[in-house]
């Protein structure tokens, strides 16, 4: 088993201002080797072979261990290299653009270990850190056979026995339940249950006596077919009292706080999948000849590609702000994470569907075109909107906060978090303090709260730069939409049993407004620096901002995916925007760059045309 380091690849000389996290992602990608080289361990060909055999990517995971990926799951205070969550997000994104199965199978260790690292139980965290850094896999067991998202209905019990606890019960549909050496399990520690009736228990299977646990068979799945989606049964399994992390009765709170962080990182999987899909679609459009022209020359094709690119940039802008907010706006992560975990996978599902239509039969063939990569990524990506809190769970968590969100937007409290470092890509982020994670944001969303002032700032900039006029108009419409939405949701009183379908629709619209506000903040605070960099054309004249706000508003208006046909009014502007954006897309494709707001070369290198 060998990873071939490709340090010798010719350096791209035109990345003078890279962001360290994007640069780290590019280094991982380069060192994993060119995925188009069929001989490599991390090649597309190998991914397809494993998928078809429903085979666990053991060799790929071992190679990632050697590369040092587990170091980025472990906070620096416990000896690892995790100091900035943007690093982890970009690493996951780059892995996911090759193979979602590998990214999910390896990344699961972060999900399993995160509750321990965030708990403040330093002794447990240090013990676990040593194991993770040596390559031990950790799994997270929340769900059970008859209780999916309703985790407080769990029946796996932990009862006091002597100096420790005895565990009895089953966890099911657990990623790496069989392959993982350690399991973070949510266990019932009070017979009556309730939010204070559960505790998180870290189990090391290597320390359990024989016969006290067994694995449930791997389940066959539509996507990520090689992943170990299985279960575990515990029977009088003894663990020490120190296996309880976050205190007896503190399990639900610890899990919900941890999910705020992990849900903010899941969208990186979707961003990787979207890059993969778009790269395949552009490549196909450029080589496919139709009626004497290439597909890429047809106006509809170009419009579709530009639309998918705009959607991808929308997701990236939102996710960049969300990941930065782990550090810079921790106390509001309950809102931010729900928005990102809902919106990004949903939009990317739409991108995959629309580009699939463009590829036509090529998206459907198992091995004839590009190894059958498209049909694999389309199947694989379906899981991202389901696990770690599905779409409905995330929308509902927004619905129950509607009153507070509306209160703080319509009548802001005298509470001014410092948001400059959140939006400014050149600014260092403050150190993440897990103690700042709270289950419900006290001041609603400060990110959404920046909208009125950000609109004023953009308008002021547009006075001297007429090219920004259209973006400013769109921002104005966004602000108006957001205000109407907050007025509507101010009196919402829903519980899970009776939440109206319309409130889920409002949560969807809320997420879109939030994404627009995040994009606006990011552009305003970072465009001066970014305009000088290799992706400067995207930032100049508010190009990506205009495109992203346009996508946000179309989705608002239609109650679904953005429509592809341009509206009659403003048709010329629309076509112009689409063309300018498509030019950047093709440029990034040909240079061999990640489809991104920031420079990041991919291992395939430039495409010769």
């Amino acid at each position: 088993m060998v990873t071939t380091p490709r340090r010798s690849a010719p350096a791209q000389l035109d990345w003078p201002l890279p962001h360290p996290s994007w640069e780290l992602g590019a280094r991982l990608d380069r060192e994993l080797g060119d995925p188009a080289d069929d001989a490599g361990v991390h090649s597309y060909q190998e991914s397809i072979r494993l998928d078809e055999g429903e085979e666990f990517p053991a060799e790929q995971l071992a190679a990632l261990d050697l590369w040092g990926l587990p170091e980025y799951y472990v906070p620096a205070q416990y000896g690892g290299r995790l100091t900035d969550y943007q690093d982890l997000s970009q690493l996951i994104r780059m892995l996911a653009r090759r193979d979602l199965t590998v990214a999910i199978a390896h990344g699961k260790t972060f999900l399993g270990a995160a509750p321990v690292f965030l708990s403040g139980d330093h002794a447990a965290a240090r013990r676990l850190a040593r194991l993770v850094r040596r390559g031990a896999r950790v799994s997270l067991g929340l769900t059970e056979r008859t209780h999916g998202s309703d985790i407080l209905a769990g029946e796996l019990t932990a009862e006091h026995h002597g100096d420790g606890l005895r565990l009895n019960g089953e966890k099911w549909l657990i990623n790496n339940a069989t392959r993982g050496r350690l399991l973070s399990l949510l266990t019932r520690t009070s017979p009556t249950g309730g939010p204070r009736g559960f505790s998180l228990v870290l189990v090391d299977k290597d320390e359990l006596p024989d016969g006290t646990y067994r694995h449930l068979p791997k389940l066959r799945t539509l996507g990520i077919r090689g992943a170990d989606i299985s279960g575990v049964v515990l029977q009088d399994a003894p663990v020490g009292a120190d296996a309880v992390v976050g205190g007896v009765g503190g399990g639900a709170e610890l899990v919900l706080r941890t999910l705020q962080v992990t849900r903010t990182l899941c969208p990186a999987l979707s961003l990787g999948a979207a890059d993969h899909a778009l790269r395949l679609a552009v490549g196909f459009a450029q080589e496919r000849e139709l009626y004497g022209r290439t597909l890429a020359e047809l106006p509809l094709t170009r419009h579709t590609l530009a639309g998918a690119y705009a959607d991808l940039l929308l997701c990236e802008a939102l996710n960049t702000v969300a990941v930065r907010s782990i550090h810079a706006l921790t106390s509001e992560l309950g809102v931010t994470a729900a928005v990102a975990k809902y919106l990004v996978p949903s939009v990317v599902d739409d991108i995959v569907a629309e580009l699939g239509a463009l590829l036509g039969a090529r998206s459907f063939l198992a091995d004839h075109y590009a190894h059958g990569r498209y049909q694999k990524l389309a199947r694989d990506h379906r899981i991202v909107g389901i696990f770690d809190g599905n779409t409905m769970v995330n929308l509902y968590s927004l619905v129950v906060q509607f009153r507070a969100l509306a209160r703080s937007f319509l009548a802001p409290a005298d509470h001014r978090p410092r948001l400059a470092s959140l939006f400014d890509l050149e600014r260092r982020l403050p150190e993440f303090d897990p103690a700042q994670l709270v289950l419900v944001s006290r001041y609603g969303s400060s990110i959404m709260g920046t909208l009125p002032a950000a609109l004023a700032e953009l308008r002021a900039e547009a006075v001297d730069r007429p090219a920004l006029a259209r973006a400013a108009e769109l921002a104005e419409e966004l602000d108006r939409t957001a205000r109407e939405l907050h007025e509507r949701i101010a009196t919402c009183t829903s519980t899970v049993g009776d939440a109206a379908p319309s409130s889920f629709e409002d949560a969807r619209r809320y997420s879109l407004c939030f994404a627009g506000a995040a994009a606006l903040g990011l552009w305003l605070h970072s465009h001066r620096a970014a305009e000088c960099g290799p992706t400067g054309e995207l930032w100049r004249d508010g190009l990506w901002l205009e495109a992203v706000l346009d996508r946000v508003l179309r989705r608002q208006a239609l109650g679904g995916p953005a429509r592809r046909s341009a509206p009659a009014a403003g048709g010329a502007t629309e076509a112009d925007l689409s063309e300018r954006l498509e030019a950047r897309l093709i440029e990034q494709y040909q240079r061999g760059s990640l489809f991104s707001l920031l420079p990041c070369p991919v291992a395939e290198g430039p495409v010769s045309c």
Partner: protein
Amino acid sequence: MPAVTPLEAEYRDWLVTRLSGYLRRPENDINVCIPFSEYGMDSVAALSLFGDIEDAFGLYLEPTVAWDYPTIEALARFLVRAGKDGEL
């Protein structure tokens, strides 16, 4: 059971009115000793109560207050203490 002070009674009445609104049940259907969860208020919805209470009474509370005091009776008694201590 110790006597209910006028302030505690005020909190109770306010909570009964709120709960009856949220759960769409008549006020006299709501028993102050029965946990919120048994009325169909799930754990996530219960978290949203703290903001309403803060807003109405100017108290500073932890979001998990309705988890730790899961009935109207327990919560009202806690709020009396929280008001006296300034916070928590």
